[in-house]
């Protein structure tokens, strides 16, 4: 290979490059169009492979879609997690720092506990089932058990318990996004703080008689849980015929849990304990409570007697 050839090669490629470069540089000035700076920033971050894996026309197309149409930011597979994080920081869509929440199922109407009012036939989806006479469960507020919430969960944090026919939330995986809450046509799924343990597993706003007709474990609105000696902090309040826990107020709710005649208060801690342990705890608590009540009664009695005595004395 002689030098002239090298020089020709060098020159021609250089010349082509230079001409094209100059034209492009000029064109970028002449044909400049204003775009959202966010789009440009995201386009900068994207790998510029223009592979089309995201389904959009090239990296800038995807950047545009993210900014203007709010497309999912996780579609860039060549970029990987780095890119997703960076886009997230530009778009400011990171999970807002608040109190960590988890979802729970506010219904304990298992196949055993809750009655059906008819046999339902149709698409096996909750949102479909509510269209024929409001669902097959005798309770108008209970879980229908087709698991649309489980389908809605994108984090794999829920599954259907085949035995009970109710959804179960895996607390460690749940991020509290509320997708299941929105998916449930009966508003059975609700959110509670991650660090709290006790929740109310009933959603029925119906009157006591109706509830006990349709479900073994439905809240009958007896209001025991709201009494001051059950929850002195006042953390449980009645809203209509259903008690609601105010998680802001400190209370272990143990008394409510044991006093509820329908066992509507569910303690997540119990899941890890054996049946004997739970029974023992309950017995212990009952004994302690009985003692306490007895003492209180005694005190009240004494007080009454003292009052009586004082009264008598005053007479």
């Amino acid at each position, binding site marked *: 290979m002689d030098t002239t050839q090298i020089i020709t090669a060098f020159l021609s490629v250089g010349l082509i490059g230079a001409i094209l470069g100059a034209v492009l540089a000029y064109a970028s000035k002449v044909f400049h169009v204003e775009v959202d700076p966010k789009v440009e920033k995201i386009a900068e971050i994207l790998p510029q492979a223009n592979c089309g894996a995201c389904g959009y026309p090239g990296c800038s197309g995807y950047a545009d879609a993210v900014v203007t149409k709010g497309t999912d930011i996780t579609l860039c597979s060549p970029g990987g997690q780095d890119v997703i994080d960076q886009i997230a920081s530009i778009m400011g869509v990171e999970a807002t720092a608040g109190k960590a929440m988890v979802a729970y199922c506010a219904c304990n109407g298992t196949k055993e506990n809750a009655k*059906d*009012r*008819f*046999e*339902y*036939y*149709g698409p096996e989806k909750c949102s479909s089932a509510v*269209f*024929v*006479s409001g669902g*097959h469960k005798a309770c108008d507020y209970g879980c229908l058990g087709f698991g649309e919430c489980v389908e809605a969960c994108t984090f794999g944090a829920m599954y259907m318990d085949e035995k009970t026919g109710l959804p179960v939330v895996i607390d460690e995986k749940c991020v509290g996004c509320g997708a299941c809450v929105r998916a449930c046509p009966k508003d059975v799924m609700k959110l509670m703080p991650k660090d709290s343990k006790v929740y109310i597993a009933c959603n029925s706003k119906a009157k006591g008689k109706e509830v006990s007709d349709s479900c073994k474990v439905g809240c009958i609105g007896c209001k025991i849980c709201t009494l001051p000696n059950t929850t002195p902090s006042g953390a449980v309040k009645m809203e209509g015929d259903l008690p609601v826990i105010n998680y802001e107020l400190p209370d272990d709710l143990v008394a409510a849990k044991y006093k509820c005649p329908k066992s509507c208060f569910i303690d997540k801690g119990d899941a890890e304990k054996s049946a004997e342990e739970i029974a023992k705890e309950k017995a212990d608590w009952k004994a302690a409570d009985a003692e306490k009540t007895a003492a209180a009664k005694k005190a009240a009695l004494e007080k009454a007697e003292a009052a009586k005595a004082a009264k008598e004395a005053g007479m």
Partner: protein
Amino acid sequence: MDKMLIVSANPHIRSKASVTKIMHMVNLSLLPALFMSYYYFGFRAIFLTLVSVVSAVVTEAAIQKFRKVPVTVSDGSAILTGILLAFNVPAYIPWWIVMLGSFFAIAIAKQAFGGLGFNIFNPALIGRAFMLASWPVEMTSNKFWANPVASFGAKTGQTMDAISSATPLNLVKTALKADPTQITCDILSKANDAGYAGATYWDLFVGNVSGCIGETSFLALLIGVIFLMILGLVNWRVPFFYIGGVFVFTWLLGYDPVFHILAGGLALGAFYMATDMVTSPISNKGNIIFAIGLAFFTVAIRIWGGYPEGVSYSILLMNCAVPLINKFTVPKKFGCVKPVKAN
């Protein structure tokens, strides 16, 4: 009431039609053709059909078991795929090829897409295309093509070499390549000279020619499809426009249209494959476009293509286009007229 009532959305009564019934009726309507294949090609035809059906059914059941979805082999659709696939192979092809073809048809073309109703392509034809591309020698060479045995007595003791023959279309193709100016009628007589004795239109019509085991008898397939039409299970537009289209195109190009209609797999394709409900368009207009496309590609492949027969490929090609056809032939809604101005 002690008994719980049933509640579901309206309507509360349903017609007696069912997918299972439809499929079994179609299977039933294929019996004449199966009988003719037995008559012409001997027990081997029945054997291959059985291999194909069993393979299809077992594959479907196994995959559904694996997917943990209800096993629906009893709906007869796998049986239908098996029969149609077997009808598309020459009589002396090794049986394991048919088995693999049937497996491929069900596994890839049907179950991978979610099973009956979701397949884009006709499974039996995908099976055939798979076999044809994979083992072209076995599928097309003269060695495996059988002349019709034509009598019950002769069905045993035949050896492969003694009965091998090329299909009429194959002969025509070979002859055409040698001398492209010939038109088909002449070639047919030439083909007769080349050991394809005495094939008349009548032979082609009843199926007394060599070919794939189920495709040769136009008559038997016609009986079957008329049965289906009486039951209202087949849309007459597809076969009519398909065959009509082939007639027109071949006639325009200067070939023998009657020969092209009677020969090859056109009857099987037009009556059974192209009318497959799942893989054909929904609307009537769509079906007509579909059928004309089929005719065009069939004739194009037969005349210019590398394969002697274009029916199966043209159906697969038009299968690809069905979603597009459906998209652009949405029927006009009732009431989508210009609003009548009140005076």
